[in-house]
């Protein structure tokens, strides 16, 4: 009786779903087939400041409008977390300079991480490893890790793939983004590619006061100019604040790894967080972390890999002190001898790197 009823129901659905449109050929079809959806990829252009090179894009993940759009949706969708409570954006809020403004990030269920979230601004140009410790080399590889991290999204990729394949909208979006022919082709790799496409587009708008001055469309105040001169050591009168060596323009990072003297240790293996050393296992890499960009640094407090400094004033005080000695302390970390006025000038310059138009760019906001 039940089988007969099911057969009747299936037949009814088949007949009614076909309609009478002559252009539509009714066939039994392959479950999950997406080929009826157009695939017309349109290259996605990313505007960059005048002193930036074009955004580097890997040949196997060219930017397309639909790919970026898919990545943006995935970035803000809590479907990637085990209990649908968190999305990538929870740790990378536009208003927080694409950080979460916490000392260390919190994952699903309040799981406490060990490091502060890093900004995504200009992530396309991070060519020397990602995360604080450089453990992966591409945005595509980076996007794979937080989903299964027990102190982040705590999900399983196989489950995420199932959810995306059976979602009302994502199969169509994956089809438009990557030309897949069947829902079953939705994979963690394509999900990561889409996320990487979106993240690659988060580029400085070039509207900070610094950008305006450098492009000869504005002037620094005397205090900001002093700060600039100390930052880049371009004055023989003012002290060298040594900042530019690790935070060089135009990105305001050199993408290198340093021990900047945060902790006092007896042996290099004694750092609470090994940083780069935990990846390379090289003794002299222990306690080194990637220098983050200082663009929009005003909005990304607290600072350092563990969020130990709440304000930029504390950061400047740390560097002015010369930090703690270790065998791999960067030789540019020395007592700076900055006066209170010097420090205020340096801070004034750092604030010229703020660019709210980047953070408020509609293309980077939550699409839901």
């Amino acid at each position, binding site marked *: 009786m039940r089988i007969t009823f099911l057969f009747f129901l299936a037949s009814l659905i088949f007949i009614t779903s076909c309609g009478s449109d002559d252009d539509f050929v009714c066939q039994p079809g392959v479950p999950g087939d997406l080929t009826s959806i157009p695939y017309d990829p349109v290259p996605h252009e990313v505007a960059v400041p005048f002193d930036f*090179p074009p955004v580097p894009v890997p040949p196997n993940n060219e930017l397309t409008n639909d790919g970026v759009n898919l990545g943006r949706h995935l970035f803000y969708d809590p479907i990637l977390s085990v209990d649908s409570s968190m999305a990538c954006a929870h740790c990378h809020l536009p208003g927080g300079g694409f950080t979460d403004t916490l000392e260390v990030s919190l994952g699903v269920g309040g799981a406490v991480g060990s490091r502060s979230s890093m900004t995504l601004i200009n992530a396309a140009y991070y060519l020397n490893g990602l995360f604080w410790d450089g453990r992966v080399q591409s945005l595509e590889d980076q996007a794979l890790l937080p989903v299964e991290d027990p102190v982040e999204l705590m999900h399983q990729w196989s489950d995420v793939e199932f959810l995306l394949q059976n979602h009302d909208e994502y199969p169509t979006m994956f089809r438009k983004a990557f030309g897949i022919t069947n829902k079953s082709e939705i994979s963690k790799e394509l999900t990561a590619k889409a996320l990487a496409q979106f993240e690659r587009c988060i580029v400085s708008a070039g509207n900070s006061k610094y950008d305006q001055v450098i492009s000869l469309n504005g002037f620094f105040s005397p205090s900001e100019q002093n700060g600039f001169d100390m930052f*880049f050591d371009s004055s*023989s009168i003012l002290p*060298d604040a*040594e900042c*530019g*060596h690790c935070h*060089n323009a135009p*990105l305001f990072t050199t993408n290198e790894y340093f021990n900047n003297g945060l902790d006092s240790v007896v042996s290099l293996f004694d750092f609470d967080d090994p940083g780069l050393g935990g990846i390379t296992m090289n003794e002299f890499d222990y306690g080194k972390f990637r220098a983050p960009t200082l663009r929009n640094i005003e909005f990304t407090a607290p600072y350092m890999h563990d969020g130990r400094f709440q304000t930029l004033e504390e950061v400047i005080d740390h560097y002015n002190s010369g930090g703690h000695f270790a065998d*791999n302390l960067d030789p540019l970390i020395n007592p700076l001898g900055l006066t209170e006025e010097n420090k205020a000038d340096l801070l004034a310059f750092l604030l010229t790197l703020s660019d709210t138009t980047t953070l408020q760019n509609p293309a980077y906001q939550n699409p839901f």
Partner: protein
Amino acid sequence: MRSPLLLILVLFIFIVGCGSDDEVLVCEPTPSTLTTVDLIFKAQFGSEPLVFNTTTYDYEGMGMTISKFDFYISDVSLFKNIGGATEQTDILDIEFVDFTQNNNLVTLELTEVPLGSYDGIVFSIGVPSDLNGQQPGDFSVTHPLGIINVGHHWAAWDSYIFSKIEGRLDTTGNQDFTNFSYHPGTNELFSGPIEKNASIELIANNSNTINFEVDLENIFINGGSLDIQSFPDSHNPDEATGAIHVMDNFPSAISIN
């Protein structure tokens, strides 16, 4: 009249050129005149291989450790002396030699270098003025002068940093350290052309190498030891003592094997 003559001439060349060897099925084009060459750079400290961080070298009775050493090499050419003239073959515009990230041994692989016997090599240390006026954003991200090496551009000088040499000196033997960092740049300090005589044979289908040995101790001590305690850095263009010393000594510090 001219056409039949030309036809006969072409046929004659074809027949004579092919020869009668059964193994030659078709007339081969001229054998390749190009080959590949590895430029291999090895850093020394005096007679010892340079070891970063862990080896302490004697410097004027003080203990020296090195944490960074790199430089740009540019305008590299091979030369032949032909009679009284010199014929030069350009093989490399610019590259970044980074000993720090490559465990003291850097290999630059060059392709399409003309085969032949050469009498030496010419190169410069630093970034030529025509490139030095540009910025990292002007190049592709992975170009030696691009964003990938953004730490080697110093906007305040409007110049690339030609070399970075960093480390520390234990001035008393009691871990009383003086950190030093020399970052020379600006067109005035460009070092070149540097000419090195060497017999270089580039052969087809062979692993051709040209070995550069760079002696960092020589960079410090040639022409009188650099007073590191008095001049521990060279970031400011108004204080270039260390930078000048370093760049002046690159020519004598590099030898070709």
